[in-house]
């Protein structure tokens, strides 16, 4: 519950077809193969997306594409093999009961307290639009909002002056609409429950339950803003399309766990969930926030059902000893410093 960071370690084991239907230029024919798979239907006739999925395989893959890949969206077989070797090495290290004598051991918890990828991602970045794989530039308003956000805390300055210096995630309020799906070190589960006229996306961290009506009903009034916004869904063939607006502005962004430059209240999100095989859904989110970003952008990754994986209740606020201890530790340090100064 202390500072949580995106794990940098990369991951992998076997290849997995990527459905890059949303890509400006689909880079392979994998998407064609994926589209050929027809999901079962629920008893009331909707495509069945139900199950518990995790994005663990994409832990550590950057939102933006590294320069060496240019406009290439998929890794080569050789690059995948390299990542798979890294995953294998990591798994071996995780299995060690004791650290190697003389090895470099940090003071943090062991890495395997978080989740690990089971196989290599195929993509070179989460971002597939724009074509260059880079998050579009901020607008002037976006830059000002980012500056304010940075000044208010988010792991900079002295966040421990007050809880208000921490992110909405560290405060256990929410990770927001994008932060709740982008893969991080753990808690990447999404459980999908469907009923006639609805889909529910239950996101493990911080126990979100997004209830999405499919009945064509209009959004709630524009004066009702919430952290997770108002979502409405519909089917396009076997793809679930979810449109979300009415978010509270200036709260969460596309950084790890909803950090980074906060969206404006005018942001609009379009998610597409397409089941590409028995275990896998290709998940895509397109973000249009012209007050914050100079262009729309789209990221995608597969989420996958894994043997034995399930969501656990992430009672974040109820057990938020991390922020409590950081705040009380800072006050104790100040008190000790003041007393030391007096004695001089």
């Amino acid at each position, binding site marked *: 519950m202390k500072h949580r960071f995106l794990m940098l370690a990369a991951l992998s084991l076997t290849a997995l077809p990527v459905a890059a239907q949303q890509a400006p230029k689909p880079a392979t024919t994998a998407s064609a193969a994926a589209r050929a798979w027809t999901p079962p239907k629920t008893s009331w006739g909707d495509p069945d997306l139900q199950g518990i999925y995790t994005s663990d395989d994409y832990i550590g893959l950057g939102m933006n594409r590294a320069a060496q890949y240019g406009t290439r969206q998929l890794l080569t077989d050789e690059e995948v093999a390299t990542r798979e070797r890294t995953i294998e090495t990591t798994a071996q290290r995780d299995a060690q009961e004791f650290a190697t004598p003389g090895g470099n051991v940090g003071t943090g918890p062991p890495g395997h307290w978080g989740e690990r990828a089971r196989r290599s991602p195929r993509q070179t970045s989460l971002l597939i639009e724009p074509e260059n794989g880079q998050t579009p530039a901020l607008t002037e308003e976006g830059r000002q909002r980012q500056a304010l956000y940075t000044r208010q805390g988010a792991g900079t300055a002295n966040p421990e002056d007050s809880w208000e210096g921490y992110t909405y995630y560290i405060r256990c309020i929410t990770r927001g609409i994008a932060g709740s799906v982008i893969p991080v070190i753990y808690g990447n589960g999404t459980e999908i*429950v469907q009923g006639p006229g609805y889909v529910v996306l239950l996101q493990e961290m911080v126990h979100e339950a997004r*209830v999405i009506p499919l009945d064509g009903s209009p959004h709630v009034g524009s004066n009702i803003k919430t952290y997770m916004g108002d979502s409405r869904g519909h089917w396009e063939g076997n793809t679930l399309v979810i449109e979300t607006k009415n978010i509270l502005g200036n709260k969460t962004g596309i950084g790890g766990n909803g950090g980074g430059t906060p969206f404006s209240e005018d942001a609009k999100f379009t998610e597409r969930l397409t089941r590409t095989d028995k275990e896998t859904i290709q998940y895509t989110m397109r973000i*249009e926030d012209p007050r914050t970003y100079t262009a729309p952008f789209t990221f995608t990754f597969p989420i996958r059902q894994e043997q034995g994986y399930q969501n656990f209740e992430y009672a974040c606020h109820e057990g938020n000893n991390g922020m409590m201890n950081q705040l009380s530790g800072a006050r104790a340090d100040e008190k000790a410093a003041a007393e030391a100064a007096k004695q001089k």
Partner: protein
Amino acid sequence: MRDRYKWLAVSIIAVAITFSASIAFVSAQSAQSKAAAPTAAPATRGQAPAPAAPARGQTAAPARGQTGAPARVARIGGKPNFTGLWQALTGANWDIQDHSTEPGPFYQLGAAFAIPAGQGIVEGNEIPYKPEALEQRRLNRLNRWTADPEIKCYMPGIPRANYMPFPFQIVQGDATIAFAYEFATSNRVVYVKTPRKAQVAAWMGTSNGHWEGDTLVVEVTGNWPESWFDRSGNFHSDALKVTERYTLRNPDVIDYEATIDDPKTFTRPWKMSFPIYRRLEKNAKLLEYKCVEYTEELIYGHLRKPVN
């Protein structure tokens, strides 16, 4: 978490959390709007380049609602369909037993936040506490304005989530049934086809369901011991097992019954029951009440860096 400013802090936060959902939500919204004030004129608004690529199908919704069934399907897999937005209309969140009117904690709020009399939901009105548990309930009640976990926006647990003054959404599939509660974004999934063993205790417990005729029976185990039944200090231990029964009286009313079994706290199992009503307002929708931020001054206020 206790400190000498507790009463001062609670006077602000408890009001927002403890009393009326609607008032709290309105004040939350207004606080949010202030916080969300733009920091600059939106000079670039509308000047963004046209979407570069995946415009396909992203604006039009030709298939909307056409492949899905209508929202009101009477039965799913031969069983009654409980899908919908629901809310109980009892005063039980104040006290699950019969209770008389009482003043609220803050005279400044006058009639708006006093405690109205209410009829309880406990069958026979008596809760069979063991003697030592009854003493704990007395202490809880004395400390109700600070000790009730609702004040801190902790997840309410089952059964309390079902009679808090907030709506909740049921979405029912063949194998799983989702319950999404407005308060604290608490939620749970009821596993009907593949039961799950409670591996760790959780505020919302672990729920497994089965059908007895047209009645949905849900057994909730693995319950966290710190949740309360109401604002009056009625409580349970980690041995709590709740057996819920949901029966449709008609398409818009659920007859709800819960059997409370906790041999560490009670001398015998006991029952509560009340109706739950479908929210019939046009376009009624589950909203979110993320109440955590309205508890932070209360919980962390004593740890704020003093202003020199």
